[in-house]
């Protein structure tokens, strides 16, 4: 399995290599990169970008710190929103991100702190920037997921034994909900269960931990990576001939070029969306994509070629834009890329937490055997 190592410029940024600031001008690339890392999910980054834009415009750029830039005893708090990205479109975020972080810090006696993006894939990457700006706090160049996941416990922090609690949920009217507990699955379950009562989504501050813990438990370089991916994607978009070079430059594997032949929507019994893609004659290969909120599996003629937590990116062949799970339509020409998973997942043996089995594709491992 090719790992993150394809990213020579972006891998494990040493102290001083990290871009030091995120400014308004960076948001478009960040949004593009975050969308790519969303693996077809993670919510619409344009909404987050607009929100972050307003924050940065009012308060200036955000300081970006490498994980090694913080003193060991400083506190790191993960920040993002939990819930349905569809509801974020209906009710735009305002002050609740800051409220959630402040409430959590109050519980911790207000230590010096930095924010960690909970999820680099999708809208949460941009909301973390906005939160850092609003709180005038440094942002760690890292994240807890490496892509987008549907549940808050699906993080490298959980896999490393960091407690999700105390976790604070906040909504715009000032209501907050604090969840405490030892068991991350239980706490995450309670957070999920309360979201409907909170209006579908809530700002959340969670996983408070020491900087030296975050240094090994978080996925390093995520923000710079998203920025670089976004920049490369934007540049490659102009000229189709640059696309293969783009894939190579970001360490991605080019899986497939073809046309969407069928989109089988999920139903009550079968929770996954299945997309059939067909390539042109004479090879006429078929690629299968299984998706939940994000793309989870890709199989070429029955052989698995990508699986969560790999990022599976589907790009429109015409515009070279990143397509979400819901955007696929029959007869659409697309290209499919695999961006290898960060090595931390293999190091932590976190298959049960973030692999196919965690996405109700459970019998896969037992059936598949060596492919």
């Amino acid at each position, binding site marked *: 399995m090719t790992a993150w190592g394809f990213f020579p410029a972006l891998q494990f940024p040493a102290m001083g290599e990290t871009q030091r600031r995120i400014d308004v001008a960076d948001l478009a690339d960040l949004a593009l990169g975050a969308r790519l890392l969303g693996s077809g999910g993670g919510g619409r980054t344009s909404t987050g970008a607009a929100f972050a834009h307003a924050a940065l415009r009012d308060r200036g750029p955000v300081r970006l710190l490498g994980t090694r830039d913080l003193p060991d005893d400083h506190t790191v708090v993960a920040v993002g929103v939990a819930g349905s990205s569809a509801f974020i479109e209906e009710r735009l975020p305002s002050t609740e991100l800051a409220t959630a972080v402040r409430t959590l810090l109050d519980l911790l006696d207000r230590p010096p702190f930095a924010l960690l993006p909970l999820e680099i894939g999708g809208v949460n990457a941009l909301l973390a920037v906005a939160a850092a700006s609003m709180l005038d706090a440094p942002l760690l160049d890292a994240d807890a997921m490496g892509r987008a996941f549907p549940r808050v416990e699906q993080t490298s922090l959980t896999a490393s034994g960091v407690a999700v609690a105390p976790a604070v949920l906040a909504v715009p009217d000032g209501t907050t909900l604090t969840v405490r507990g030892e068991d991350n699955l239980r706490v995450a379950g309670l957070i999920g269960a309360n979201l409907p009562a909170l209006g579908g989504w809530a700002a959340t501050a969670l996983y408070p931990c020491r900087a030296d813990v975050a240094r090994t438990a978080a996925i390093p370089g995520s923000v710079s990576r998203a920025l670089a991916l976004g920049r490369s994607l934007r540049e490659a978009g102009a000229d189709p001939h640059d696309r293969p070079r783009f894939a190579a430059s970001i360490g991605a594997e080019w899986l497939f070029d073809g046309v969407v032949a069928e989109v089988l929507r999920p139903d009550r019994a*079968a929770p996954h969306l299945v997309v059939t893609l067909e390539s042109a004659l004479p090879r006429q290969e078929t690629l299968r994509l*299984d998706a939940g909120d994000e793309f989870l599996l890709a199989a070429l003629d*029955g052989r698995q070629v990508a699986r969560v937590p790999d990022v599976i990116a589907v790009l429109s062949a015409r515009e070279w834009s990143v397509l979400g799970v819901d955007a696929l339509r029959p007869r659409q020409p697309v290209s499919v890329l695999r961006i290898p998973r960060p090595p931390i997942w293999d190091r932590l043996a976190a298959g049960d937490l973030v692999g196919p089995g965690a996405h109700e594709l459970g*019998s896969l491992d*037992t*059936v598949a055997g060596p*492919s």
Partner: protein
Amino acid sequence: MNGAPGGTGTPVTARDLLALPLPGRVQTLGGAGGLDRVLDRVVPLGADPGSRADSDPAWSRAAVMADLSARPDLRHGHVVDLLLRMCHHRGAHALIVVGETAPALVTRRLADRYRIALLAVTGAAAATVIGEVTVAVHHPQVATARLLVDLARELTRCSGDLERISAVVARALDASFAVHALDGTITGTSPLPRVPAGVVARFRSPAAELVEGRNVVVQPVSVPVGTPQTWLVAERDDAGPQWRDMASRALALAQGEVSAWATARRLRLAEEDRTHGWLLTELVEGGGRIGERWRERAAALGWLVDGRHVGVQIQPVDEGPLEAPALAALEDRLRAAGLDLTGPIGWRGGAAAWFSGAGPSGPAPRADLRDRLAGALAAFSASPAGRPVVAGVGRPSSGPEGIAATLESARAAALRALTRGGTGTVAADSGGGPGRLLVDWYSSADFRGEAARLLRPLAETDDALVPTLAAYFDAAASVTAAARALGVHRNTVMHRLRRIEDLLHVDLSDPDTRLALHLAVRVFPRPFAGQEFVAL
């Protein structure tokens, strides 16, 4: 395993599984190209599709069965994709999924690509389905025996009712089914088998064949002697060799019930014909004098008694009367030729029929009557129930006694047609002529039998001898004229006449011998001579 695990010698294919009586509903989801691959074994994977997958390498030519009935979440089937891939690599020929399955296009494409028949069974418990498929593949004879036992029980409840028999057989085989009778009647379930009646009637023994991709199984109903008059036909699109084998046995079983029906039907047709024949006999023997009761019965049968009539007598060229199925087929052909006749009625070894017109002028004269009649005769001769026949048309005659008169005249013409022409000849009685003297001779069964006995050695030796003798006599004993008529050399005729003398131990220079043989040749059946018209 030689493709016959069950020992019946007939291989089982995935297509058979679509047709065999399995519980639940079986449908093909993909891999149609693999439906005809032979299945040697069944590999059940159990409730967890993956639990035994890696530990059982013996998948060669197997039907792999996966129970997904408890996992509706898998019905879009990425697991099915993986199983297909494993089937492909391990040489399995079919993948059978139990439970509601709605595979994505990609799954169907994969099955197509690997030529692995992907079947889904719904509406039955997995354990039952797996058990039944195992029996069907490993012991197909058991499935067949079960079906036959059930069928036998059902058939006994049909009490000879052909529609019920048809429904029972069709349901048991899940096929379309029909009984074809020789006269062209077809009884069966809707939709009827598509195989044409002409094709069916050619079968002399049971057969199971693929006809244009359809499985056609035909069972002629056995008769003690002669050719079959009734056939059982089952047909379905999707089935394999095992189904054809099973269907053959089922039809053989149903044959008994159908045979009883066919016999009863034959008796009924014969009875109808006898009623007509009785009325006709009474009319002829009474010399046209008839009572009120006779009139009532004739009217009930649709006879127009008081008009003017033109009789037609149809006579078989070979021996033996025309029986009920043949009469039914003949009626069918006469109607098809647009001839609106009363009859045909079995009459004096052949069949009598007549046109009736209401007024004294009688039926409108038909210029094309001969052609139509000759066409009907040819069609009848070529039909499954048909025999070679000739026809005579009588002189028009009026009133009840006119029916008897015109039929007698038609019969005389038919006998002339027999003697003067070959099969298909239509002769009209235009009245008069010394030839009428010979009618009694020709119509004598004793004379015809004696003539046949006399000439048989010639017919059995060489087909050319009887025609040569006839040509010789017709040419007033001129060898030269006979050779010209036959299109052969004079010496050939001389040679044949010598062989005839040797074979019959006769001397052709003797006038009595010549006269006797001439008369005999006249009534001896000849090969088909086209639609010749012979006037007396």
